[in-house]
């Protein structure tokens, strides 16, 4: 699938972080910008960060124009990704419903659905009956307090196989000459006169005039190494799977109000996730309080799953931004770029994120889709507050 080359002394560009976003960046740099003398450095094994531990929900029905257009860009790439990579990422457009449990939810959702439509994104506002029709397994009553009023439905949304995304991009990048170097931890940056010159790693110095950092939960740590500060907090986000069962639900269901989301993988596990833990952590495990709350919500919405059993639960470290939107940005060090802050919901953006980030690195200026996501927005006040859309981690 990919070679295991020794790192060379220098490259034209380096990508730090072998998650989906980093791998996609490397792939598009090679494919669309002809930069092939590049390396991707991953401190352990590619796809082992949040890419390998996320609940794989893909959708583009975000509220603000800036996000909607970026995520929709990703969605379009998803739609041709298996063909592009010649690797089946099992992108499954089974439909994503975001449930509403109150008038207030309905109003906010209507606003988002209307905005989506005008932004050219498929979105439907369902009433309770529509919800039941699309997903007959849901119990609309929600114990009385959280009855299901309706939902937004994005039919083109769905899931993809997380591991395959990482591997497919890795293979594609490798085939185009990118050196994918695992077990290579970046420990510092070489910076001279405000211009990045390369990185220090546990396998020696590697020089390059351009460095793109895509390290999710470790972005703050990386910024620190370059003397920069990022408004991202690393917090644990947990997920769990049930034992595998025969097909029991064939769409993705998310709910902010009861705080949970669920889908069923192609192997049969129910894949379930919810909120972040309250404290900063770099340990890929969370607190015990999470599962009871998440499962309570699932057992409300799907009482028929009450006797199901949890097979495994785990955590990832997500890089949360104050406005729940990512940072895709130049920094005040020339040649040093950051792509981070995807928090609880960046898997769905993987192709789009890599695509625009590659463009930024190659051309040294953000394109239209990326430019709102500059780190400068925290100074100017141009926040893109997606807490509504990202209110439940996904």
């Amino acid at each position, binding site marked *: 699938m990919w070679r295991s080359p020794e790192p060379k002394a220098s490259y034209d560009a380096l990508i730090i972080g072998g998650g989906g976003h980093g791998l996609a960046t490397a792939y598009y740099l090679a494919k669309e910008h002809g930069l092939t003398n590049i390396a991707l450095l991953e401190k352990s094994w590619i796809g082992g960060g949040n890419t390998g531990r996320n609940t794989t929900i893909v959708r583009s029905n975000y509220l603000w124009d800036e996000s909607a257009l970026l995520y929709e860009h990703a969605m379009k790439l998803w739609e041709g990704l298996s063909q592009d990579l010649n690797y089946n990422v099992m992108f*499954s457009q089974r439909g994503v419903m975001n449930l509403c449990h109150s008038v207030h939810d309905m109003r906010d959702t209507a606003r988002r659905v209307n905005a989506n439509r005008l932004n050219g994104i498929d979105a439907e506002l369902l009433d309770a009956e529509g919800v039941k029709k699309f997903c007959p397994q849901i119990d609309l009553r929600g114990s009385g307090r959280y009855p299901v009023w309706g939902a937004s439905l994005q039919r083109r949304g769905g899931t993809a196989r997380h591991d395959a995304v990482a591997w497919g991009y890795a293979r594609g990048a490798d085939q185009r000459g990118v050196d994918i170097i695992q077990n290579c931890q970046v420990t510092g940056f070489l910076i001279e006169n405000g211009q990045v010159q390369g990185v220090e790693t546990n396998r020696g110095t590697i020089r390059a005039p351009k460095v793109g950092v895509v390290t999710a939960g470790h972005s703050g740590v990386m910024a620190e190494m370059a003397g920069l500060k990022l408004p991202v907090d690393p917090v644990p986000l947990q997920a769990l799977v049930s034992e595998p069962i025969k097909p*029991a639900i064939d769409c993705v269901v998310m709910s902010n109000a009861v705080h949970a989301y669920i889908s069923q993988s192609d192997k049969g596990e129910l894949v379930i996730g919810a909120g972040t833990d309250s404290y900063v952590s770099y340990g890929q495990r969370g607190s015990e309080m999470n599962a009871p709350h998440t499962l309570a919500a699932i057992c409300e919405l799907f009482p028929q799953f009450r006797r199901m059993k*949890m097979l495994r639960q785990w955590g990832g470290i997500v890089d949360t931004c104050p406005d729940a939107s990512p940072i895709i940005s130049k920094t005040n060090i020339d040649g040093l770029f950051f792509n981070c802050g995807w928090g609880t919901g960046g898997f769905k953006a993987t192709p789009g994120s890599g695509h625009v980030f590659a463009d930024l690195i190659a051309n040294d200026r953000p394109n239209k889709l990326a430019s709102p996501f500059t780190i400068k927005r925290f100074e100017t006040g141009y926040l893109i507050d997606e807490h509504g859309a990202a209110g439940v981690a996904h």
Partner: protein
Amino acid sequence: MVQAFRLPDGGKIDRSTPINFTFNGEKYQGYAGDTLASALLANGIHFVGRGFKYHRPRGITTSGHEEPNAIVDLNVASGEEAYREANVRAPVIELCEGMTAESVNAFPSLKYDIGSLNQWLARFFPAGFYYKTFMGPMAVFWTKLYEPVIRKAAGLGRSATETDTARYEFQYGHCDVLIAGGGPAGLSAALAAASGDARVILVDDGRELGGSLLSDPAIINGTDSGSWIAEVLGKLEKNPNVRIMKRSSVVSWWDHNFLNVWERCTDHLPAAAAKNQTRQKLHRIRANQVILAQGAFERPLLFNNNDRPGTMLANAARTYVTRYGVRLGKAGIFYTNNDTAYADALAIVEAGQKLVAVIDLREVAEGPNTEAFKATGVPIYANSVIADVDGKQRVRGALISALSSDGASLIDHGQLIECDFIAMAGGWSPNVQLHSQSTAKVKWDDVLGAFVPGKASTVNPSISVGACNGDYHLGTLLEDAFSKGLVAAKSANKPGRARKSPKADGRETGPHRWLWLPPGKKTYNKGGKFFVDYQNDVKIDDLELAQRESFVSVEHTKRYTTLGMATDQGKTSNINALGALSQITGKEVAEIGTTTFRPPYVPTTFMAYVGREVDEFFDVTRTTPMHSWHVDAGAAFEPVGQWDRAWYYPKAGESMQAAVQREAKPDRSQVGVIDASTLGKISVVGPDAGEFLNRIYTNAWKKLPVGKCRYGLMLNEAGMVVDDGVTSRISENEYHMTTTTGGAAGVMGTMEEYLQTEWPELQVYLTSVTEQWAVAALNGPNSRTVLEALTDDDVSAEALPFMAWREINLSGIPARIFRISFTGDLAFEVNVSADYGLQLWNLLMTAGQPYGLTPYGTETMHLLRAEKGFIIVGQETDGSMTPMDLGLGGMVSTKKGDFIGRRSLSRPDIIKDDRKQLVGLDTTNPETVLPEGAQLVFGEDMPDQDKLPAYRPAKEVVRMAGFVSSSYYSPNCNQSIAMALVKGGHNRIGEKVFSPQADGTVIEAVIRDTNFYDKEGVRQHG
């Protein structure tokens, strides 16, 4: 019904109590004390399930939680749907009367399963086959053709389709020492730990304590182990500080020594007996010290077709024969790589189960247990392997071949020995699951050929004893566990007093041979089927393929092949896989590493985690003192935060819209009343209270006179509006602040935070008094008249002007009257002690009747305030609105000094004038009510109709101007009214905007100010 495969005697089953059960629709009988697995075996049934991928027949393989193959669904008869349980491990199901079970992953039946065709296509299904195949030239091949097929094949068992009504609970626990595992090591540790004042919890997942002693008895302290266990338990049970939990598994170990223990309270009972009892509990236990005495798992051996039904672990074979009195078959073959297992072989033979051969991988069959076994006369084939297995749905024979001297190849074509079961003894792997969960490391032990616990973690220090610590010698482990039990109690500051450890002569053990990957008739890479992870059908060639395809990291290998990801989480397969990988790659196992153990230790029921916190207890419902009145009046309720607020009071057959139109009128023409008790109320007391409010709110507070009220706006540090409310000055030193219902806790939190962490110099105390007060808000021209009917105190405009408050005696109830208005009409907020809330309400209703007093709910309140253009935080705001955006710039004081969020208001993107700004909208057709959440487009940006087909996304991105935040039909203005946030709206008054609707229609409106009613604001001053 005959149990043809029951030995004539022996076993800990109660032969006088037969138990009826159904498996795959057939009726069978077992005995009390059986598990489903032992009962099936006693009926001669080995073949019970099929593998996930190839659907190959599979049998009962183990006698415990590590079972990979014998997975069944329980409660499968009609009428049991709500209790149907997917994927249960047959060896741990205690048989009970009337039990029904069926095989998983087999359709239409276990014997004739369609999916089993997959095994003939096996070469098309190597590891990772998903990703490389099922592609097709066009995406549609995947979506329409392959994906549905793959998804149908998913899963093992089937979930219930009805709601489980059983009761589940969780319970908190606290102890000094928690011991996981009640075998000899755990019991010995418990004896020591509990010998002082320590609170001890001993947890074991079996129905009886004793662990391996139950099937492998020994002499302890000179008596048989059965009596010893009884004696220990007797002692422990008498100790009030000790809690023994049977049928309970320690499933998770979280940071700071917090553990989850999953107890199955009634699963062993027939349905009728279990009724009305709690089915399962999750104990959430904080332990000062944790001792792990989890034992060890025996490993299968790797050989060609090592998955045929009838193939099981040696110690499981022993357990079924000796503990359950099961005859496993007519003739068995025992296959081992070590000496110790001969003790099991001997026990099996001595119990009357025939063995026809022992196949020993070791070059020489020697060692104390081997020698002892030789007396049985069963032939031993040393330096030999099972090269192949005959039989499909049941083992029929084994092909035995001799090994070359290096163990790498076979030196003969072998001899077929007929047999109907094979017992495999591949050595033991200490159960380091919980140790790893504690975040401690494991280390590789070459002698044991397994991981043993490494250094304990500092956060969750684990103490391992017995077999899970790699100590397999009964004598030493009893003593070691005992001394560590004392250490643990001492560390918890409750030292034990016992000094005499239990004693036993452990079994001597002879040599072993860790030949991880022996050759076979077909080798693993030449079509041989060497299963390593049974349930997920991972074979050795899959592991090798992963290596070849760059999935070298063990984590990649796992994910590419799905090794260890099945419901048994690799309990029996992980070490074998690593051993085999090490042999394939030439790397040391320690170099290959291991994957991460995660909770739970065994799959755990969702509802055990949830306990009672579903249905009525899913969330708190908070109610006001007047709640019962609203209920009696037939109110519909709206959840606001955790509160239930009266939403509207429908008359018979009335819709919400109709009710609101009716409720909204009296508030302008007569008088209405709403229960406003839910508003947050905070008492702000101290010499610096005014200064404090200055820093909390955007406007100034110090000069507010006593007796006066003022509206305040609160921002976050980013400058965005987060709450609002009226605050009144009670005295020189005291303000009474109100917040939004949903914002109360957050506001109080923020105020305490700033007070304690940023401004400790301010002398201010905050007390939440939200629920001290019941509040009824009277609105409308008659409101004063109603009030006057109930008080002799002066509530005239002079005595109590707009934005003032005073205390009055309201028919004997001390009340605070605030003349503030959220409807823009003459209004009084009446506050009384909450105990009198209901009485106040009733008094008002009676007094108000002559004046047309109408109770109204939150929906009408929303409409009324919209008539006046008053915002609702959370409706007109979404966390991205500044006071200026809302047209409330006048409330931002520039003189008083700093306040939360002030600095942010001068940032460049905040002062831009094309920000979304709050405006009113007049729809061109005054009868048309814009839907809330509608998006707006300026005329110049409106696309052609064909670019915006009905119910479809726009064909090109349409630039949006803003959105509608509130919209109603106003019976008081006789037109539709709406508020909206529109880009640069304040400068666009009079301009047209267009709102494209999903159905393709477009609603037209004109931008205006937000005040639709009583522009001059005279009414509220009335």
